[in-house]
Structure formats: C-alpha cells, structure tokens
C-alpha cells in the first residue's frame, strides 16, 4: 500500500509540481481504483501499469480542468526565473525536501508540454519500459519513442538554459 502510494504521489507531484494538489490527486486516484477494481484485467498489463494509467488519466483530466486558471497566469510563464523564485518562497518545505538536482529538474519539467512531460516522467523517473508506457499512454510505440526523445532533448535544453548540468 505504502509503495503504491509513494509511486502515485511521485507521479502526481512530478506532473503538477504542487504538493497539496498531488496529495488530493493521489487520494482521488485510489478512490477511483477502489471503485473500478472490478474492471481491472491482468491482460491490460500488470497492476502497477493499470494504476499508472488511472493516475495519468486523472492527471490529464486535472490538467484540462485547470487550463483556464493557468491561462490567466501566462505572464508568469513568460518570466520563468521570477516564477521559480516565487515558488521557492511559497513552498520552502517542499524545496527543502527535494534535492538540489531534483528541485531543478522539477522546475524544468513544469516548462515542458504535458505530452513530453508525462513521457519523460514515466520513462526516466518512474523507470517504466517502453511497452508499459505504450499501455499507459495508449499510443503506438513509435509515438512513445518520439515523445521520450523530444522530451529529453527539450529538458536538457531547459536545464542548460538554467545553467544546470546533471552529472
């Protein structure tokens, strides 16, 4: 239970970048899993993959739901450095929890498009196989590979702009 909770919470946190939202979303994920457990078939991949699919669908729903709110904050997107400083000031405990690189990666991830972001998170932070990501995203293997490739290149470019070079 704790292992699954951690996995779901991390996926939510890496996608949203917000601790409180991630907590609420994690609870929603487990509630949905609890209600739809009867629909789970092992043919859809392992339980962890199915759980990741449920989480990802909920994250996309949440992203679409909150898009309008973010549109009003587009000015912040134009000034990422300022946004980072503000977020550090807002959530000092969260920043302390994250390691230095982890925090920098999180800041860079929020600047990726959701499609590329989820692909990179699933592959490099959740360490899923290509076939599992294919199950989760419900797209062909070529598309999965292409998104992961573009996501990595874009993330490396953003981190380079931030002056971060992971070793």
């Amino acid at each position: 239970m704790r292992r699954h909770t951690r996995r779901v919470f991390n996926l939510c946190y890496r996608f949203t970048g917000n601790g409180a939202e991630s907590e609420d979303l994690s609870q929603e994920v487990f509630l949905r899993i609890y209600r739809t457990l009867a629909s789970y078939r092992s043919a859809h991949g392992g339980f962890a993959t199915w759980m990741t699919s449920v989480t990802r669908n909920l994250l996309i729903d949440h992203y679409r739901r909150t898009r309008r709110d973010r549109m009003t904050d587009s000015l912040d997107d134009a000034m990422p450095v300022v946004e980072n400083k503000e977020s550090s000031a807002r959530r000092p405990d969260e920043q302390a929890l994250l390691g230095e690189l982890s925090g920098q990666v999180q800041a860079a991830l929020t600047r990726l498009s959701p499609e590329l972001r989820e692909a990179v998170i699933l592959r490099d932070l959740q360490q899923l196989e290509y076939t599992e990501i294919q199950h989760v995203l419900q797209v062909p293997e070529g598309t999965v590979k292409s998104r992961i490739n573009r996501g990595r290149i874009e993330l490396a470019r953003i981190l380079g702009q931030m002056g971060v070079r992971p070793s």
Partner: protein
Amino acid sequence: MSWTCEHIESRLSDYVDGLLEPAERQAFAAHVQACAHCAPLVSSVSSLVRGLRKIEQLAEPPRLVYNILDKTLGPRETAAGWRAVLGWLNAIATPRFVYGALSVGATFAILLTAAGFNWRKPQLADLAPASVYRSTNRQAHLVYARGAKFMNDLRVVHEIQSRLRPETDLPAAPESTVPESTPQKQPGVTDGAPATAPRQQNRTNGMYPERTVLATNLAAVGPRRVS
C-alpha cells in the same frame, strides 16, 4: 551510410537506452565525434538521463495513507463511552493470554497454600515475609518427617513379613536348583566310546554309512582282508 544531424537527434534516445545495433552505434559515434553540433547535445542528454535515474522518489506525506484509507474504506470507528474505557481489554482477550493468566494464578495458589496461607480465613499477616518463611520451613520439615516416617513404617512391615513367612515359602536350596554336573567327567576328556558308536553324532559317520556296511559284508564273505 553516414548519419546526418537529423538522424542523430531522432535516434538519440535509442543510443542512450542502448537500443542501437552495433553497426548503427558505430555510425552514430563516428558522426558525433566529428560534429560540433551533435557532440554537446548527446553529452547533455546522456548526463541528463543518468542524473534522472539517480533521483530518488519523494516520500509521501505521512497522513496521505490514512486519508486514502479513510476515503476508500470509510472513516475509522472511534470508540465512545464504556467501549472506549474497556477497549484495551480487546488486546488481551485472547485464549493464549487467558491460559497463561490461569496457569500463573494456579501456580501462585499452590505456592501460597504450601506457604501456609489459610484460604478460609485469609489474613494479611499470613503474607508477611517472616511468616511465609516460617510456614514454608515448617511445611518442609513436616513433609520430610512424614516421608521419613513412611519409609520407616515400610521397613518395619517388611521385616515382620519376612519373619512370619513359613519355611516352605522360602525358595529351594541353591544346591537343588543348580543343574547337576557330571562328577566323573573332567573337562576336555571324552567318555572313551568309539567314534563310530551310533550315539556319537559324528558328521563323518553320517556322510559315509555305506563304508561300514561294505567292510562288514566283505569280512563275512572271505578270509582276505581288504585294506
């Protein structure tokens, strides 16, 4: 076929994940070595992926698991009233604990009884260490004296029985019970009978009875002796 920068960019993840064929890998490396544009790109993406793999998962807030359980299985029941007061009994209301408690109680009861505690008229003074010691000492001496008396009585009864027992009941004299030996016979000496005598069970006799018969017949037939 030599690779272009577009090739390199499109297959970069395959290279990092080790999914390129040996020939492709060779062509990839050859281009990257010579290309000033691709070399930093490949280097930065490779180190990014290595760095991402090293990042550990964040610890979830401690309350999250309980919140999830509350949401899915419902809020936990909180005991109220006398249930809350007696709630701790649930933890010890197991057969194992009850058996253990009963055996400990029985042991104490036996020890107290042995120490001279009067169950019919219980007095606190009986539980004082000095009186417990005195009672235990007295009980131990009593048990020892009773045991010694019992053994003594047993010995007396046995002696009386032995004296009252008639002579006929006594076992026969040892001489009559021992099997009689052969007085004339010395060890290692035979009784002097011929080896061919019928009562001597000789294996040779048994094996060749016809020789004796033949020798007897020949002696009867003629004066010539067969050697």
